[in-house]
Each structure stands twice: as C-alpha cells, then as structure tokens.
C-alpha cells in the first residue's frame, strides 16, 4: 500500500451529510418500530385505556361536577366530560410516545451499534434526529388513532378546518419539544428500565394541571402548581382550539414553554451524546 493511499481521501469526501444521514437513521428507526410493534401498540393503548376509563367509569360523576357553562355545550354529565378530558388524553398520547422515544434511545445506547456510529464518519446528530423524526411520525399515527377513538366515545369538537390545522401544528410543536427532552432522558438512563420510568412525571403532569378537572377545584398549593406548570397552558390551548373556548394568552405561554423545552432538551441531548464513555 502506498503512502498516498494512506494520507486519506480528498477533502470533498470529508463533507458531512446531515440530511441524508438523518433520513437513513429515520428509515432505520421506522423499520425497528415495525419489527417491534408491541411497543407502538402499548404506547397507543395507554391513552385509549385512560380515555375509556375517564369517560365511562368516572365521566358521569366528573362531568356533573364540572358545573357552569359546559365546554363544547354537551348534554352535561358523561358527554360534557368527554369533551373536557379529550385534550388531556391527546396530550397524554404525546407523553406516551415520548416515553417510547426514551426507551428506544436507551435500547440503542445499551447496544453496541451506537459505538459503531461514533467511530464512523457520519453527521453525529443524525443518530438523534433519526429518533426524533421517527417518534414524530409515531406520534402523528398515535394521535390519529386516539382522536378517532375519542370521537367514537362522544368527543364533539367544534373546530373548523383552520382550528384543526392549528391544532395539528400546535401538537407537532409540543411533541417535538417533548421528544427532545425524552432523547436526553433516554441517554441519561443507565438501563432501558430507568428510561421507561424517567419520563413518568410527563405522564402524570396532565393530572396535576387542568387536564382532568378544573384547577380551581384543587387545594391552594396544588392549584398554584397546576396553574403555572407547562402542561396547563398546553391543555388550555388545545381545549380552546378544539372546543371554541377562549384561549387567552395560553397559546403564547404554551409555545414559549415548547421553545424552552425543545432547546433545553436539544442542548442537553447533544452534550450527553458527545460525552465520552467513562470506560
């Protein structure tokens, strides 16, 4: 072998192709999802089960307790509650999906394939963006299923086409932000088990906000937390878009939260991915 061959490829060969590599990684992640469908089913199943529980088991009582003018103008009771709870269940679909993101990231990290990627001349971020895009597609699929089921069990949105499009865009923004957070949580986990537990607070937060009951029914301390935590403006925005309730400044607050979470999650993820293994 000659010296010339050893001194390496032309600089042009050293260019990075982040878009092309991300697309490759996305294909890999979609294939993995298809090979491992039980995870997707579990992730869609959870919000559906919660939806059925809250509408059919708790809905009658909770709906009666909503009082006042019922959002969506349903017939009170169960029907009113279906309208009230749907945005929270929609958000729960997103949090379940990002829980899946953390799990698949952690699965990747515990397997040797990531080590291989690290020694290859590829755009590093594509390993993560592949997961982000894959999860985004999975979330869109899950949201379609869950919203479909919600419509079947009595959710009656009043949104027109414009409001639906705004809802879709808003949900993508929320999902995108939470996915990046989850990518970091998946990397920070030492095992797949930890990764499935770490995003748990995300699943619980809609309960500690305006997702399932109005915040003014809560005790003072909890109420304060519920009103200021990020999921409340997100839920209120969804509720407003879908059932014609006034949104107020919730949309801006929600989008600001999304920007902060997305940026923080992205920077944290990037730092975690570039850190060296300790051994």
């Amino acid at each position, binding site marked *: *072998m*000659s*010296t010339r*061959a*050893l*001194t*390496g*490829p032309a600089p042009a*060969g*050293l260019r990075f*192709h982040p878009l*092309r*590599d991300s697309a*490759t990684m996305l*294909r*890999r992640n979609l*294939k*993995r999802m298809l*090979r*491992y469908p039980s995870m997707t089913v579990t992730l869609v199943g959870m919000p559906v089960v919660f939806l059925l529980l809250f509408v059919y088991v708790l809905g009658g009582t909770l709906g009666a307790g909503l009082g006042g003018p019922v959002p969506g103008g349903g017939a009170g009771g169960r029907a009113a509650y279906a309208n009230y709870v749907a945005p929270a269940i929609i958000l729960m679909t997103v949090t379940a999906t990002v829980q899946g993101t953390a799990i698949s990231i952690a699965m990747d990290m515990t*397997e*040797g*394939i990531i*080590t*291989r*990627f*690290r*020694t*290859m*001349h*590829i755009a590093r971020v594509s390993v993560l963006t592949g997961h982000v895009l894959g999860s985004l597609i999975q979330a869109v699929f899950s949201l379609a299923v869950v919203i479909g089921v919600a419509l079947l069990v009595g959710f009656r949105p009043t949104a027109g086409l414009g409001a639906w499009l705004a809802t879709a865009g808003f949900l993508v923004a929320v999902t995108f932000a939470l996915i990046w957070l989850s990518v970091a949580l998946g990397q920070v986990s030492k095992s797949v088990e930890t990764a499935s537990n770490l995003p748990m607070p995300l699943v619980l937060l809609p309960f500690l906000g305006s997702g399932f009951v109005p915040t003014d029914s809560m005790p003072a301390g909890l109420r304060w937390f519920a009103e200021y935590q990020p999921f409340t403006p997100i839920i209120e925005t969804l509720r407003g878009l879908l059932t014609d309730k006034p949104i107020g400044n919730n949309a801006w607050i929600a989008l600001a939260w999304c920007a902060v979470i997305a940026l923080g999650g992205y920077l944290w993820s990037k730092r975690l991915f570039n850190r*060296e*293994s*300790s*051994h």
Partner: protein
Amino acid sequence: MTIKQSRPAIAATGLRKSFGDQVVLDGLDLNVQPGTVFSLLGANGAGKTTTVKILSTLISADAGDVQVAGHDLAREPDAVRAAIGVTGQFSAVDNLLTGEENLLLMADLHHLARDEGRRRATRLLEQFDLTEAGGKPASTYSGGMRRRLDLAMTLVGSPRVIFLDEPTTGLDPRSRRNMWQIVRDLVAGGVTIFLTTQYLEEADELADRIAVLDHGRVVAEGTAEELKRRIPGGHVRLRFADPQGLDAAMRVLGQASRDNDALALRVPSDGSLRSLKTLIGRLDDLAIEVDELSVHTPDLDDVFLALTGDSTNEKVTPR
C-alpha cells in the same frame, strides 16, 4: 526492507490515559506499518480496549501524540473516522434489523449509490457465509455469525485501517479459524489490522508484529519469533540412527538430557546460529551421525508469562 520506509498506518507516542486515579495507559508507544497485522497482546485489564477506544476516536487520551492513517487523532478525528473501521468486543449490530439490512444501513451511511450498496452487501454476505441468514433478524444469529456480520459491516466502507478488539473471544474453535482466515484475506488486500487478543496462539498465527501490553506499558515488541528468542528455555533436539551415536553424543555434549526410546537428545540452546555452529562442529569432529536436528524455541505462552510476571504477584495497588 521497503516496508520500513512507508509512513506508519498507526503511530503513537507517549499515550497516557487514567480513569480517576487508576492509570490505564502509562506512556504507550506504537508503530504499525501499513498492510500488516499488529497484535496488542495482554491479559484482561492490561489496557487493550482502552487503547483501541483511543485510537478509534471513541475516547481521548490524557497525553500523547497519535497519527492514524496519516491524520492527527486530536486535530482531525473526522479524517481518522473516514479511514478506519472498528469491530469491538461487543457486537455492534442492530438486532432488530436483518443481516442484509444492517449491511445496507452501513452502505447508506457511507453514501454509496443504491446499486453499489446492494452489490457490496450481497458480496459481503457471500464472503462471510451469511447469504442464507441474510434475511433473518440479527437477534437470531449465533455468536460466530454475529461477529462475522459485525466485521462485514465494518468492511462496507472499505476502511484502510481496521481495529479488531478481541475478535474471537467467546467463539468456538471453528469460528475462530474462520475469523483468522478472514483477517489473512484482508491483509492480503492491503488493509492494516490492529488486533487485540488475549490468545497467544492468535497473535502467533496472525500478527506480523506483537506488542505485549502489561499495566499500560509495552513490555516487549517484535515478531513472534523475536519474542520467543528473548526467553530462555529453547533447546535443540538431536535424533540418532542408533544407540551408539546417542551414547557418543551424550559423552561429548555432557549436559544434555536423553530420551532412549526415541534415540534423541535434548540440548539446551538459545537457538542462535553461533551456538548451532558450535554444536554441529563438536559432533562433526567426532564424526557422530545425526539423523535429524530440530531447534525448539519457547512458545508465546512462555514469553508472555516471563514478560508480564506471574499473575499471582500482580500489583494490586494502582501505582
């Protein structure tokens, strides 16, 4: 030797690495010529994997200069990555994808054209005896198949320097021999192989040069033969046609040990030409007829144990 004049495929000087207060590499120097197999031999925990991780850009060294494929490791890690391939101890395959999909994934990441990627994947599956298993998920593969797929994935990008970190650990003897053949074929194609192993036999079979790593330092380096010659315990075996010859030689050589059944003598010797000349000269002077003469050097096991010290008195304190 023309090979000495070419630029080394891997050159490292004064490589140091500590994890906390545990010193793993303590001033490592390496020089690997292109197109050769260089074997880093050492017990578990000697620092082999750490060395591979540093040389393959996975972790950075605390100190030292490294050039891999002509590129500075610290300043041009991307250029190094473009030139190397790594197959580590733990299989780096995607278990949910099939063997073929794993190879195509690599082809895509190397930005090969679709046709070229498919061609290369098919050829590698054939070459590594995985054609039949190519459509099955890697999770169903045996240890040997997985290791072959792992190496095949490394080869998709036609790397010029390949790091093999204990490539045959945990493989059955047949798979091990297959792997050895694969390595020989690669080197024949001009690739440089940096191989770590704890099997002396493996280094003996494959390596052009061997460095013995102990406590983060190279304690000896050379060809397998050179290393063996450094260790006392070699001998010359003489076989005679009849007991008279044996008796006569025994009288002349004195300190030899005899094997009456085989009509053979075992004479201590360092195996050097000079000592052989002397020996043959003495036998010649008395016209003693020797049927067969063979020189036995110690095997690498002897070398390894002599160089790295007995494992029972291994230093327990880190420094």
